[in-house]
């Protein structure tokens, strides 16, 4: 515990904690006084902070349901900070990690984000996994003008001045995967199965529009299905997929099923005799980390689309894996796509700090656009003006060792698209945070930023 504490704790926290312990031992008669001291101690930590190191906030859940996925990302950022410090830090200053635990609780994410920015005065934050947690912290980052690097694939439809999206947007994962199935596998019927939350909903809407508009797929040939989080009884749904796929046309499942629900899903597929050769499943949320906790036998041959696989055969990747295994001390530990996203995000931020010569948020925001750093798949990632990055898209086939066999890859990198071309609401929107536009939702049809004119026009239309 001690080593752990030393590793993750900024020093002021200790003092704060000591104080807390002292003041919880109040007597009844001193209730009011204790309350006062407690209150003061809560607001205390910002004053004792030393000005010297550059502070890197880490906002990943270390407890609760999301700890499964997020705690390794915390370790990743800590490893990157350690590596950076070994190289002499940045601008001659050391980096210091400030770790807080939002405990998989969305309101707590907002509170912790505020703590990082307002109390600890961190220079940059790496964090979040779920969309809802990002949505929860977004107003805080905008209000307090912080920097957030968000490393997970997401539904798009967002571009904030203060957030950098290093994970895939739908056009960097879902659409290439579907194109692969169309062109290489010859799929004609589609099952879009997902967990009922915003990422699958949006992705499936985009895919539905894409399939219908671009490839003339009929309504009857698309089956959309949503299940709750952690769904474990897949019998009916798999039976439906089986029937849907037995109409004589090649069928594939595009799965945006989240986390825990996947194991029972694939098991049921295998048990009902659905083979990857008959009906392949391409998943957007199943990576090495998820595979490490399950019996991979039923999954072998199914597909996943990511921007990185641990099995990528490049030296950068092997170096990264070696460093990661050394850092965790666990020969079995795996790397995955969001880790690579943090790797890219961290290097981009470091590069921008060097370029700007300061950690000042506004300076970084300007400097980082256009920054290009190597990714782990043998190419380069560039920060686009819409705060998304360029990524290659890889399709991998699950192997029995829990790794992916890469079967297809986009010829070049794809730039992330904040606003999907396939959704009516966002078709006309673009994001560009360079001067003079500086706008996250510029409407090219009306030529204005944000909704104000759109609203006026809508009202005018109503008046007519």
């Amino acid at each position: 515990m001690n080593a752990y504490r030393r590793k993750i704790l900024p020093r002021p926290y200790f003092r704060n904690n000591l104080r807390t312990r002292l003041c919880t031992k109040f007597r009844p008669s001193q209730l009011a006084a204790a309350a006062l001291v407690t209150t003061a101690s809560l607001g205390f930590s910002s004053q004792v902070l030393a000005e010297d190191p550059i502070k890197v906030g880490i906002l990943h859940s270390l407890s609760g349901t999301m700890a499964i996925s997020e705690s390794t990302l915390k370790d990743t950022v800590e490893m990157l900070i350690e590596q950076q410090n070994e190289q002499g830090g940045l601008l001659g200053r050391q980096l210091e990690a400030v770790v807080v635990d939002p405990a998989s609780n969305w309101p707590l994410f907002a509170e912790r984000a505020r703590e990082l920015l307002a109390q600890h005065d961190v220079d940059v934050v790496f964090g979040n996994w779920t969309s809802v947690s990002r949505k929860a912290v977004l107003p805080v980052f905008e209000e307090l003008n912080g920097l957030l690097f968000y490393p997970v694939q997401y539904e798009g439809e967002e571009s904030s001045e203060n957030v950098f999206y290093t994970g895939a947007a739908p056009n960097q994962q879902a659409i290439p995967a579907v194109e692969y199935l169309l062109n290489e596998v010859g799929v004609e019927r589609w099952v879009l199965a997902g967990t009922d939350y915003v990422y699958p909903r949006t992705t499936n809407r985009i895919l539905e529009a894409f399939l219908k508009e671009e490839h003339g797929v009929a309504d009857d040939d698309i089956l959309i299905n949503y299940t709750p989080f952690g769904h474990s009884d897949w019998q009916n749904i798999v039976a439906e997929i089986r029937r849907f796929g037995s109409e004589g046309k090649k069928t594939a499942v595009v799965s945006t099923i989240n986390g825990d629900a996947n194991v029972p899903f694939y098991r049921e597929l295998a048990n009902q005799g659905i083979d990857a050769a008959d009906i392949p499943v391409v998943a957007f949320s199943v990576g090495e980390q998820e595979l490490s906790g399950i019996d991979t036998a039923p999954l072998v041959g199914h597909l996943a689309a990511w921007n990185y696989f641990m099995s990528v055969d490049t030296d950068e990747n092997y170096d990264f894996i070696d460093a990661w295994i050394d850092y965790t001390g666990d020969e079995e530990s795996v790397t995955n796509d969001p880790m690579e996203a943090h790797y890219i995000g961290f290097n981009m931020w470091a590069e921008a700090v060097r370029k700007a010569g300061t950690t000042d948020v506004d300076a970084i925001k300007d400097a980082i656009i256009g920054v290009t750093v190597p990714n782990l798949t043998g190419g380069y990632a560039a920060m686009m003006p819409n705060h998304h990055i360029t990524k290659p898209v890889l399709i991998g086939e699950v192997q029995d060792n829990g790794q992916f066999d890469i079967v297809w890859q986009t010829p070049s990198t794809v730039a992330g698209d904040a606003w999907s071309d396939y959704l009516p609401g966002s078709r006309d929107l673009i994001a560009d945070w360079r001067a003079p536009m500086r706008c996250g939702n510029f409407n090219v049809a009306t030529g204005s930023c944000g909704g104000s004119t759109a609203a006026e026009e809508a009202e005018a239309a109503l008046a007519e």
Partner: protein
Amino acid sequence: MRIFPLPWPVAVKASAGSVAGRPSRCLVLLILLLSLCLTAVAAQAQSPDAAEDAVALELLEALDVDSYPAKGEAIDAIVQSDDPRARDWLSALLDGRLQRADDGRFVVVLDNRGREWPVEDALSGEALGQMSRRELDRIGINNALRNQLRSAIAVVDLYSADLALRRASAERLLGEVDADLAEPLAGVIEQEEDRQARARLIQALAIHRLEQGDIDAVADLKGSLHPRVRVALNRAVMGDDQVVADAAQAALNSIEQNLRINRGLETLYFGLSLGSVLVLAAIGLAITFGVMGVINMAHGELIMLGAYTTWAMQQLLPGQPGLALILSIPAGFLVAALMGIAIERGVIQFLKGRPLETLLATFGISLILQQLVRTGISPLNRTVITPEWMSGSLVINDALSLTLNRMVVLGFALVVFAGLMLVMRRTRLGLEVRAVTQNRAMARSMGIRATRVDILTFALGSGVAGLAGVALSQLTNVGPNLGQNYIIDSFMVVVFGGVGNLWGTLVAGLSLGVINQILEPWAGAVLAKIIVLVFIILFIQKRPRGLFPQKGRAAEG
């Protein structure tokens, strides 16, 4: 030039551009010869001489190119060379294990876990020890090649001595027979002795005949529930020949009728299987809650412990998942029962007669147990392997097959239930438990050690939760959150069935499962669950004591 008939649509598509001539009967014979020779040569284990190695190396070299069409030709070349190692190469290539080391040697990777992989020489078959994955380059294939490889291996299997392989082959041929294959197929049907494989092959041929407009084929297809048959009949209905279309329509109608019945049966099975999971999860609770009146919120975590025991057993006995699973049944019971005793002695005995307080205290225990597993083992899910005999499904007919793992769980649930009934009805412990439940003071004065009975009852209920965990490890994730997903459902089942009534729990669990599965296709998974919950809430308001309330004076109070 290709030598195999390529029955799969994608494979056909992949080869469409290059196929010069369709495979003919002599090619099939060639395959037959090839397969015979493969087995014969392999049996003699002759080591090929150097000249052969040079040829073989050339064959493999041809694979290590960038162009996929070139690789396809290289695969054909390997098939045509009657090298005895060809089949091993092809399957290694299919699995992505055929790789090339930096020194140019071709190797087969034996195990690709970790960073260092054990490999053997692809030509000589001698073990080369471990190689770093950095030194190796995989020979990549794409889907078209994968299908080509599978076709190549599978058509060979049609002539295999292994019955299972032949059956699988026949299955695959359904709807894929073309004119070139039709003729030799008739010969194969003649030769085939296995009824099942034979019936399949006849159907496969009939589909082809139907496509050719042969009305007699409808008779061969009538009554088959196989989706491919249905597709073929559907096509015939759409076809130009009115007579054939009418016959096909008639056959189709009877098939549809049959399918509806099968779907009904399938839904019933799904419901019973879901119900059996609910019963398993709830039945331990029916004992601790129903008989002792203890609200054990840590019940879910006891289930989780059972599941983790299964995982631990499989770790202890690597390579024998089935044995480990069977051994986990007593082990899971024991672990959960011991934990139950600890909980009873440590907390619950101090809270006698304060059910709401036990609820809070055991909830605290559940949090501790969860976190214990998270920090002690891992926050990640654990891999529990499904043994061979529990994978797959029992095929009743082409439209109805029952998944084996769920069938085993269903049977297991019934066995556990019967066992519990026996314990409660036929043993001294059961008698004492019932006595203590009804009148504690009186039972004590009769010389029954009530404390001991409490401990044993709680251990029994907890142990059964452990058994549920063992079963659930075969259906769902084994992770720290496992228990949480079942606790509310378990309480619902017990309360719905009537507290203190094991039969009630069984009936409630199974019926809730069936209701849920009937609702699901119609309302969707989430809504179905909400409807069931609301139904139970309303039901409890109407009949606060559940389906089978305890009667009599004692219950009136």
